[in-house]
């Protein structure tokens, strides 16, 4: 370990319980101040590596460890996570699953309560953390009413209140809109300037590539240095969409003056929009703008408060934001086969599994896979059987570049086969690569963006 390193791993290897292959393999790594970006394919070991910094690996997950890891002067193997928690702040991938208390201030204070901070000090530090993350205006709100982006910032405030020396974030941009992602990136720069070491694992680099710091890749559990060119790779590689055939194709779905909202309070008001067979429509817009409500209304899962929804006959595929909502069969192959049960589509299902790069995972339990792999399994499960209309809510969440490329290929193939596809996404590169039209969904209204506006 170097004298200045905040965290240092030397010859570190880690096996999950009953795993034959190490998830972290012979890693030598020093983390000093500044920002360290970690990239890597789904299942490459990024999340496992991040968890070493606060001791969740191995203390929470069990398993076997070789080598040494030191964080803020503590030997990780000999130090419980609850002790490291005072030095290391950890923001998990899914902000909805890390809120402990129902109100904003209480949730931020949870960590401080755990380490016995006096009430007066705690209230001051909660206020500072809310200010630091730009969510003072959320004070007094119920956590359940916050958007995904707001929850992500709340989670960050919760760890910053504990004044960590090392801040670790696991795919913090996965649910953020462009504005939220830019704001978070700026916050990370500020924190690094204040002397906090920041380690970020992320697939969406379009908002992070300008950050100062170094970039590393995790490949098969090992660390590789990444130069700036590689860092900017696929996310910047915008593919030209195929020529649109929309004017010639029949209308596949249509919303006429629709008002809709999940609790019968309109989130969308007087929306009129249509989509055609063989067309890809991208829905973009800020968190909480109504994209999911629009998709659910199109799917028939949400009855409109007023107006009419029309879909031509045929199967409608729907991918929810949370892929876990689908996965319940013992293997990926069984999961996909379940969708087409009773149909003579099994060959198509096998081909789709291969197309999405899941063949080597076909016999694995989908719930044992990494986030990106689960997402691909869920996509295969809903798209099997050649649906007439496919509605995909944040389909690239947690996906690496290769998986995103595979998904683009599937979307283009299905589009050319006549499927009407609607994507709700924050992933500008996905929209640019496959969308024939882009609709902005914001403040209850839907408007079509011109190609210039999309660019």
């Amino acid at each position, binding site marked *: 370990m170097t004298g200045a390193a905040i965290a240092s791993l030397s010859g570190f290897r880690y096996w999950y319980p009953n795993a034959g292959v190490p998830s972290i393999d012979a890693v030598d790594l020093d983390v000093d101040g500044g920002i360290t970006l970690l990239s890597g394919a789904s299942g490459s070991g990024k999340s496992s590596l991040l968890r070493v910094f606060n001791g969740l690996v191995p203390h929470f997950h069990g398993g076997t460890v070789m080598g040494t890891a030191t964080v803020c002067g503590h030997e990780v193997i000999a130090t419980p996570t*609850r002790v490291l*928690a005072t030095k290391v702040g950890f923001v998990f991938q*899914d902000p909805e699953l*890390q809120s402990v208390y129902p109100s904003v201030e209480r949730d931020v204070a949870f960590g401080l309560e755990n380490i016995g901070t006096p009430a007066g000090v705690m209230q001051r530090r909660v206020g500072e953390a809310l200010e630091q993350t730009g969510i003072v205006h959320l004070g007094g709100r119920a956590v359940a009413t916050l958007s995904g982006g707001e929850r992500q910032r709340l989670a960050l405030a*919760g760890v910053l209140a*504990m004044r960590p020396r090392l801040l670790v974030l696991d795919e913090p941009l996965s649910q953020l809109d462009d504005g939220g992602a830019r704001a978070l990136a700026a916050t990370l720069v500020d924190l690094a300037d204040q002397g906090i070491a920041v380690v970020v694992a992320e697939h969406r680099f379009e908002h992070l590539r300008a950050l100062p710091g170094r970039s590393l890749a995790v490949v098969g559990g090992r660390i590789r240095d990444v130069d700036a060119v590689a860092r900017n790779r696929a996310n910047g590689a915008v593919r030209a969409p195929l020529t649109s055939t929309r004017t010639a194709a029949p209308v596949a779905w249509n919303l006429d003056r629709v008002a809709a909202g999940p609790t019968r309070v309109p989130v969308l008001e007087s929306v009129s929009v249509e989509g055609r067979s063989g067309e890809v429509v991208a829905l973009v817009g800020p968190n909480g703008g109504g994209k999911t409500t629009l998709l*659910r209304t199109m799917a028939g*899962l949400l009855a409109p408060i007023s107006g009419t929804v029309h879909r031509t006959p045929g199967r409608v595929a729907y991918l929810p934001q949370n892929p876990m909502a689908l996965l319940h069969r013992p293997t990926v192959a069984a999961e996909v086969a379940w969708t087409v049960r009773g149909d003579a589509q099994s060959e198509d299902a096998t081909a789709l599994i291969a197309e999405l790069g899941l063949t080597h995972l076909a016999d694995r339990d989908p719930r044992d896979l990494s986030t990106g792999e689960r997402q691909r399994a869920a996509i295969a499960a809903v798209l099997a059987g050649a649906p007439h209309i496919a509605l995909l809510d944040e389909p690239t969440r947690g996906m690496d570049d290769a998986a995103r490329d595979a998904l683009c290929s599937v979307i283009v193939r299905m589009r050319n086969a006549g499927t009407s596809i609607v994507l709700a996404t924050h992933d500008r590169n996905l929209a640019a690569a496959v969308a024939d039209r882009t609709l902005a969904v914001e403040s209850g209204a839907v408007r079509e963006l011109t190609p210039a506006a999309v660019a």
Partner: protein
Amino acid sequence: MNARALALWSLSGVTIALSTGSPVYRALVLLCALNVLLAFRRPGVSLRGLLIALGVAAAIAMATTTLASHTGDHAFLMLPGGIPVIGGPLTLEAAVFGASTGLGIAAAVLAAAPLSLVLQPHALVDALPGALARTGAAIGTALNLIPGIARSATEIRDAQRMRGWRSRRVREWPDLAVPVVLTALEGSITLAEAMEARGYGSGVRTHYSEQGWRSTDLIVAVVAVAAAAVFVAFRVTGAIADWYPFPDLSWPAVGVAGVLCCLALLTPVLVWRR
């Protein structure tokens, strides 16, 4: 209001309701508790479901006692003796005793209800003594998971419905139940991991909002505990008479001390600001 004061008030109400058989005292406790609930329930909280459930529970208690207890001088119906358990005379005394039992259950439940219908869950958790703080935080967190599980169940049902799942087919219910259970379990594990990462279990916990004792909180707690103590003491010594309708139905004796002890449970309505 101080959660500990309200908890002591609830404990006192339950104690009085369960330490007497008199329907008069039980009815007084019930009315006082209902008053407190109506005055201080959280915004948006409806009492309708609770009151219906208590009505059903009281009716069941009355029906069960009437059918199963054949004691008493005033029979109003004779069921054939060959019918197991319920065969024999049905008496007015048993019916009234059953009604009083139902009243006692309702009074006790209503006295405890403010803990969930007036206080926020975390306020009650914060009110636990230091030794139970970690357990309390775990309970509070578990309570916080419930709405998430309900949302997740809806999301899973919708997603599976789009893949052809139909609720009418019983054999397909596991296709909904399995992901709901697995998602809830995985959510719990992730939350546990997040709690650990934020220092849960480090040592003595403190609370963001310390609940101070104001004079009105002290008045509520002291009056309620004193009322319950006096009531129980008088019951033990016989200064407050109990009531038993068998074998011959009689009016319950009502004493000033007993009535005052019950009415003392109205103190929150008198001293706490709404």
